[in-house]
Structure formats: C-alpha cells, structure tokens
C-alpha cells in the first residue's frame, strides 16, 4: 500500500523535520499545504511563510497555498487537496506539544476523512532539538520573543553547540527549548530532502522592544547543492 500524504508546511524546523521523518517512515509526499496567515495567527507559523515557495522548489514538491486563518483556511486547503490529489489519505504536521494545533488539524482532517500523522508528537523537546540539527536540518531563527534568548542566533545557522546553549538557557529562563510556546520562529535553509539550498545574503536584526527581536532578510538566494 502506498501511503500518499500532504505535508502542512510553514518552512520552519518542525514542519520540515516532520516531513523528513514521514518520508523516512515511507510516506510519499505529494504536495505541501501552505497557509498564509495574518500576522497574529494563533494556529499557524507566520514569519517568512512567503519563503515556502523557495523551499517547495528546493524540495521539488508542488504546493497548495491558501491565504487565511483558523480552521476555515485549513478547510479550504483540504478541500482543494481532496480535489487535486484524491489519492492522498494522510496529512503530515509538525505538532510537538500544542493540542490547539493538533486537535484542530485533526478535527478538520476528519471532515475530509484524512488521517493526521504527527511524527514529533510528545517527543522529548530537548532530544528533538538535538535530533533536528544532528539529522541535517539547517535552520536559523527569524524572530525571538522571550527573555533569555540572545539575538545572536538570528541569521546564524544553528549548530550542535548552539543547541546545547539554547537548552541550557531554556532551563535558566524557563522557556521551551523547541520554542513550542512561540518563543522563537525558525526558517529552514537546507535539509536532506532539499535539492537546492537557501542562502541569506543580506540581513538586519531589528530590536523591536525589550527582548523581542526580528530578522529582516534583505536578500536571499537559492543555489544548487
């Protein structure tokens, strides 16, 4: 039985790594589902979701892109998925510990008789972060909104040393090391399934207020690997 799937994709580390794991578990990814939400969305990852077009190109996958928010946006995306890819039976999500995401994705998916696979669900958060880097997901932070996480990670590809430092800081300051509470947002620049990689050529770190920082990407390029 071929397990055809679509991946709910935001371009961050969680959705990229869950897609990676689903691929390893034998799911055949037919397309990406990209929701372009408003800035303050509670359900979807927001910064640089527009770069998912470049990432989809890097992955060599087509995508369904819907502007909107909440359950209605996902409903629209799944209706289109059903029409364009009737063979798809599974949705891959990067839900880690957020029931808000997991259950809402599940509720809408059930309306379309789709099964939701969340390969990262309830995994140990620290081990997860180590695995992401260990398994070749190259990502940077695009925003920080928690006390204790320094802006030096913005624009930098996170390596194993950074991971250990982030884990240590998370213990000191009491934030989630995998940023499940929205402490930071991430952008994946390269991954084992990427055929091309993204290179940030010019950027600026914007200090918005107190401990809130944002990465302003001025120029980004896609190069063959």
């Amino acid at each position, binding site marked *: 039985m071929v397990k055809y799937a679509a991946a709910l994709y935001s371009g961050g580390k969680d959705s990229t790594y869950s897609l990676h794991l689903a691929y390893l578990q034998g799911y055949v990814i037919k397309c990406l589902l990209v929701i372009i939400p408003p800035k303050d969305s509670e359900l979807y990852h927001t910064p640089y979701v527009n770069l998912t077009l470049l990432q989809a190109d890097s992955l060599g996958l087509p995508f369904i892109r819907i502007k909107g928010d909440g359950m209605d946006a996902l409903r629209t995306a799944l209706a289109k998925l059903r029409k364009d890819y009737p063979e798809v039976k599974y949705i891959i999500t990067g839900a880690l510990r957020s*029931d808000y995401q997991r*259950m809402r994705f599940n509720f809408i998916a059930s309306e379309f008789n789709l099964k939701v696979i969340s390969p990262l669900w*309830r*995994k140990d958060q620290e081990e997860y972060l180590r695995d992401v880097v260990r398994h070749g997901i190259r990502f940077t932070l695009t925003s920080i909104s928690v006390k204790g996480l320094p802006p030096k990670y913005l624009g930098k590809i996170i390596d194993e040393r950074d991971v250990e430092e982030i884990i240590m800081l998370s213990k000191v300051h009491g934030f989630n090391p995998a940023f499940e509470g929205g402490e930071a947002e991430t952008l994946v620049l390269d991954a084992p399934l990427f055929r091309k990689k993204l290179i940030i050529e010019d950027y600026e770190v914007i200090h918005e207020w107190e401990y809130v920082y944002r990465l302003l990407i001025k120029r980004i390029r896609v190069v063959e690997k």
Partner: protein
Amino acid sequence: MSEPILIENPMYIVDARGVRKGSSFTIIDGEVNFKERIKSGRIVDARNRVVSIGFYNCHSHIPMILLAGFYSNLGFWPWLKNIISLENKLMDKGILNDENTYYSSLIYCSLLARSGCCGIVDMYYYWWSAVNACEKIGLRIMSGPPNPNSWSSFRREISRINYNLFTPIINMHSLYGVDINIIKSVVDEIRSNIPWIKLHIHVSETRDEVYGIWSKYGKYPIQLLEEYNLIDNSLLVHLCWTTYSEIELLKHRRCFMAHCPTSNALLYTGSVAPIVELDEVGVVVTLGTDGFNPSYEVNLRRVAKDSVLQLRQQYWSAEVSAWDVYRFLAVNGAKLFGVDNVIAEGRNPDIVLMDIVREARSFVDEDNLIEFIVYSPELTPVRMVIVNGNIIYDSGFNSDVEKEITYALSKLSNVRRKVCEFMGEVENEE
C-alpha cells in the same frame, strides 16, 4: 473460612514496595503471616517461583468473546456499528441471552485467571452473568447494569447479586452514547445512596468522538466531565485523544484510568493515551483488555507487554519502564479494587505465583526480575492464583470449574455456529 496456605521458600517477592528475596509465609483467611507456621492446610513449594501481588483487568466486556473475530478488520466505528447491530439482532433471536453470556464469561474469566488476573471491571448486557462466572471461578468483579437510568432500577438490579467479591460500579457507556445531563443526574442520585461508588465510562477513545463532543459542547470530553463534576472517583477508559489542557484538569484528582493498548492498536484508534503525563499528574493508571478481540487470545500479561512496547515507540524513549507497567497491572489495579498491594504481615493481598522456567533461572536476579515478568510472560508463567485467601487456579481449576468450562466450550461452539448461520442469513437478506 478458607484453607490455610503455606508459601514455602519463594525465590522472590514482588509488590508495591519492589522486589526482594523471598521468604516463607502463610495465608490464613487471606491474611499474610510471616511468623506463624501452619499445622494443617495447603503447603506450596515455591522454590523456583516468584510471589507477586495479583494482577487486575480494569476494563472489559468479557462476554464479547462470543463475538471474537467478527468485523475485526474494519476499524473502530464500523466495528462498533456492526457489533451493536449484531448484538441487537442476536438478542431478538434469543441467541445472546443470559445463559450464553454466562458461558462466554466463564471462558474469558478462565483465560484471564491463567494470566494472573484476580479481578475484573466489566460492562455488558446481562451483566449479572459475568458476575456469576467470576463467582464460579472465584475472581473479584466490579460491574453493574449498563447505562442505568435511576437509583431505584440500579438498586433493584444490583440486589440480585449476593457475592462477597462483587463491587457495584456505575457503568455509563460514553459521552456520545448517553446524554451528559442524564449521566450527571443518575450518578448523583446513585452516589447520594452509595457515596463511594465509581463511575466507569469510555472517554476520548477516537478522534471522531472528541470532535463530536467538541462540536456539540465546545469543550473536550474531560473539560465536559469537569464542568459536571464527574471526574473525582471515576474510572475513565482509554483517554487516547486527551489534550494537555485536560491532563491539567486531572491533576491531583481521585481519578483512575484504564489503558487498553492492545484493543486501541487493533482498532487503530490513531492516538496513544498520554500515559506518562497522566501518571505524572497523579491519575491512577491501570490496564484493561477491553472487549474487542480478533481471536480467542485473552492474556492480561500480553496487554502489559503491549503497553510498554507501544509507549516506548510513542515517546521515542524509555520513559515507561517495566516497573511502571507492573505498577499499572498490579499495584494500581489493587488500588482500584481496594485490595492490599503489599505482601506484608497482617495484610490481605491477592497473590500470584509465577514459575521461573529452568532456562531463565540462572539469568534472573532482583534487578531484572520485573523485566522478566513484563517482557517474558512465557519465561515466567503463572502457576497459581490466590484471591481473597482462596486458591482459584493451580495449573488448572478445581474439578467442578473444569467440568463447567468443558461444558461451556461445547455449548459455545454450538452458539457460535448459530451466530455464523445467522450472520449468513443477514448478509443474504442484504
């Protein structure tokens, strides 16, 4: 008065306190005594055996073994729909009746006792038949009429039972099967007469169930139970799709849950109950076989093994240990039944004796015994089960029970044939 029993020279003793080297003890009227030797009674040579507190099956529909294998590859909802329809038709035809549920229950109970089971929580039609089967074998049972609608009918039903190891429980099927307001009013009415009685209910077994509750009430199932003050002193079954916000509500509550990993996996309900988190917040986690059965295998220790394997895979870690699962199976099961879970002077635990087979004997020690019990039931087979001070299983049942089991098997073979013929008729009609 039960016959005094001397358990002589066991290799190890296991209970809520852990594993320790064994020493001889007597059981007189169910009470453990390490000092007194008996002058007459049963002497059990336990030299190559482990003595443990009993195991408990905390959720089941035991007569359903009669329908084992039917619709077994359909997944939860089609299976449930077909089984309910079949049950209704079989009841109309008089094939599913109290006699046949008694014999089915007897077979199920005998298989359970072989895997060290000392007590069963049950929910099914002709519920008294399961109680009678437990009485025949000597098992504890918690049960009651399914979906009672008032205290007076509940009282009338349970008053027909006169078995000292029977404990009534309020069997409400589910939040999708019974209206929450009815559940609340009946539970309150029954509890105003029996304050300690537990509510036994399926919760969050499938995604569709949770979606249905959420759509109807705008709440997750545990949130709904909390709103109606129905969490304390309840036995919540499955909890596969429980959310973190619901787990918070269960923190430090007097609440039990029955985890049914084998049934959940066979019916591919799509999510594994968050056992680590539930255990951490103080929910008393127990294990159950449930009613779905694709074959005739009934083995509580297999359920325990399935549990640890499934949870390790789910969490990608060894957070759930063999000891945790032993706790769920034995220590917490005993808590649910209100039975002592330590083998100590003056205490009254149920007892299971397991062999350590010759091939394993030199490899087993105090440090790995629990792993052998949980992961290798075939290397540590149950040889004796003692419930409430009575030996109910000793590599076989007493001759009266064995005779009844033999009769039950031949009887059920005929009933089963009738069910198959009947199903053929139904299919032809369709």
